């Protein structure tokens, strides 16, 4: 019984990792620009497909796959921010609309070029480790450890460095930050690059969990938003807590035989939560911690 619990806990962590990466990327971009970037999930799809192109055979080549997907998606993010999102900062709802168009372009473009069916990526490490009775596939361990490293690094960066402080200042009040001499537009570009980097790595992780297909990211992004919303949009810690919560609830529901109603229950619960507590869950948690 105890082992079973631990096994479930391990599974929760690996699916929470992916949710956390989506939610963090969305959250950071929203916090800085106010833009709901619905194309963010498709950035992850692109990352997964870059891994497929660079390292379809898996194994050690995966390192290059990760590096390539992080680089490609980050550069793409910078280009898109400079070319498109830059012009919507004054009216973030237009940024959301632009991202709708982008999502349409990426999803259909990927489906056109790679086909609408999923492609297979061989595992990075097909070993299964057993620790204290818990069977852990090496790939899932890579995902969990990679996500933890990324999250800790990001929190340290935002909390401890001067650039991180500047980014938080912009999130708090863009005009005031600009008046204090913070290079707002440059940092917004930087945060889009950071978001792209996270999406690229996240896409690589997702490719380890399941075969990539064109709508992979589109299906993740709505859950990512829900997680970010529950955690309080703009907060990295909140996004992590929300992701673990979501993965935990999903595991419980699947165990209870409600797999089909998963989305209805999750999204329904978030709607109710927001009707009862429009300010989100984050503040409540912050007070109790």
């Amino acid at each position, binding site marked *: 019984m105890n082992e079973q619990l631990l096994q479930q806990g391990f599974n929760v962590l690996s699916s929470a990792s992916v949710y956390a990466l989506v939610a963090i990327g969305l959250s950071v971009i929203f916090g800085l620009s106010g833009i709901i970037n619905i194309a963010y999930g498709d950035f992850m799809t692109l990352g997964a497909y870059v891994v497929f192109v660079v390292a379809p055979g898996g194994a050690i080549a995966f390192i290059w796959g990760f590096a390539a997907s992080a680089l490609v998606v980050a550069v793409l993010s910078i280009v898109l921010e400079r070319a498109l999102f830059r012009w919507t900062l004054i009216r973030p709802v*237009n940024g959301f609309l632009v991202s709708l168009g982008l*999502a349409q372009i990426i999803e259909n473009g990927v489906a056109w070029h790679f086909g609408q069916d999923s492609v297979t990526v061989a595992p990075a490490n097909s070993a299964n480790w057993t620790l204290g009775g818990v069977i852990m596939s090496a790939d899932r361990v890579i995902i969990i450890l990679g996500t933890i490293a990324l999250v800790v690094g990001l929190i340290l960066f935002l909390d401890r460095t001067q650039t991180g402080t500047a980014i938080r200042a912009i999130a708090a009040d863009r005009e005031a930050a600009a008046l204090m001499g913070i290079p707002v537009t440059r940092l917004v570009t930087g945060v889009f690059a950071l978001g792209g980097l996270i999406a690229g790595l996240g896409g690589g992780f997702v490719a380890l969990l399941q075969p990539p297909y064109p709508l992979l990211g589109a299906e993740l992004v709505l859950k990512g938003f829900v997680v970010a919303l529950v955690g309080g949009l703009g907060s990295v810690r909140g996004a992590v807590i929300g992701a673990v919560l979501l993965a935990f609830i999903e595991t419980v529901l699947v165990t209870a035989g409600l797999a089909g109603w998963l989305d209805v229950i999750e999204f329904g619960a978030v709607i109710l939560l927001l009707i009862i507590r429009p300010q989100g869950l984050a503040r409540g948690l912050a007070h109790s911690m």
Partner: protein
Amino acid sequence: MPTGNLRRGSADVAPAAASRDAGTGRSLLTGLNRIRRRGSAPSGESSWGATIAQLVALTVIAVVFAASGVPAEYITLGVTVFIYAILASGIGLLYHDGGLLSVAHGGLWGIGAYAAAVLVTKYNWQLVPVILAAALAAGIVGMSLASISTRVAGSYFIIILFAVSEVIYGVMINWNAVTNGAEGIVLATPASLFGYQISSNMQWYYVSLITLLLVLLLLQVIKRSQLGQHLRAIRDSRPLAMSVGISVARVHMASFAITGAMAGISGVYWAYLEKYVVPSQFSATASISFVVVVLLGGSAYLLGPLLGAVVVIFLPSLLHLSPLLADALIGVIFIAVILLFPEGVVGLVTWSLRLLMARTGIGRWLGPPASKTPASAARDTQEAIRRADEGRQAEEELRET
């Protein structure tokens, strides 16, 4: 942390041509007369003459198109355009007058379609009661969206409506007893309307065209009614609107119920046209494509959503592109429109025509001036304040007597 409010207004720049046009002495006089006759003129709306002219033009073009012997598949595309426009025009009202970007109307559309499929295949209902039932069902679910819009605004509202559309989709796919799950329902029986059978696409073409005309007329009435005025007042400043006694809940409930009912009716026609309903037609993707239709055409214009639907539906078959590439191309066009012509395709056309015809006065018939100017926005709120004052005065007079 940012509160996520829609920062409206800062980028709403009225084309210079519009204000130039309004500056002539004659239109000033008409405007004054109108204010004297029936309170203030609604902001950003065309006169009834222009509305009627546009609807007549639409009817003539649609009838000539159908009678000109185009291939049968174009008629089918035409029905799809009208179905999209019935729904998208409602979304346009919510967005332009209410500042509410709804990404849940694809789900309401699905509720209408499923209502038709279930009521016809299981209970053999006639068309009119089916339409009423679908409008009622989608309208009630739509009305419940007001419980969200009164609590959260801007980005939060958009995300939660995505959640709503996912819930509706999830119910459709899991409620096997009613919806037959992912397999969907086949609706092959022709509709019967007052004893006549409606089965051919040409018949549906005219039924949906007439419905669209009625919907556009109704929307124009709403925009000019107190409801439209209150909706705009809430959009411009919620606290100010509330302080003069406007009930945000009531106004939003009415707006969502009406546009939801339109989505339901549109869904009924869709079910009959496709002869097959399945949950994947009504996912968040559907809602997104309606938003694209509305903003591509221009939400500020009566015929904007219709024109957006024409572009989205006819472009792929005119260019002979594969559906995937056509959708990607629409994404490109959409981004270009959002960034370069925020007034949409109709806005662009009207603006260029106005520029050409500024002196002839014909431009006046093409539609409303560009979205609200600061002055007209203020007018809506002022009008609401004035009415509240009148109400208070009347109350005081009553109390004195």
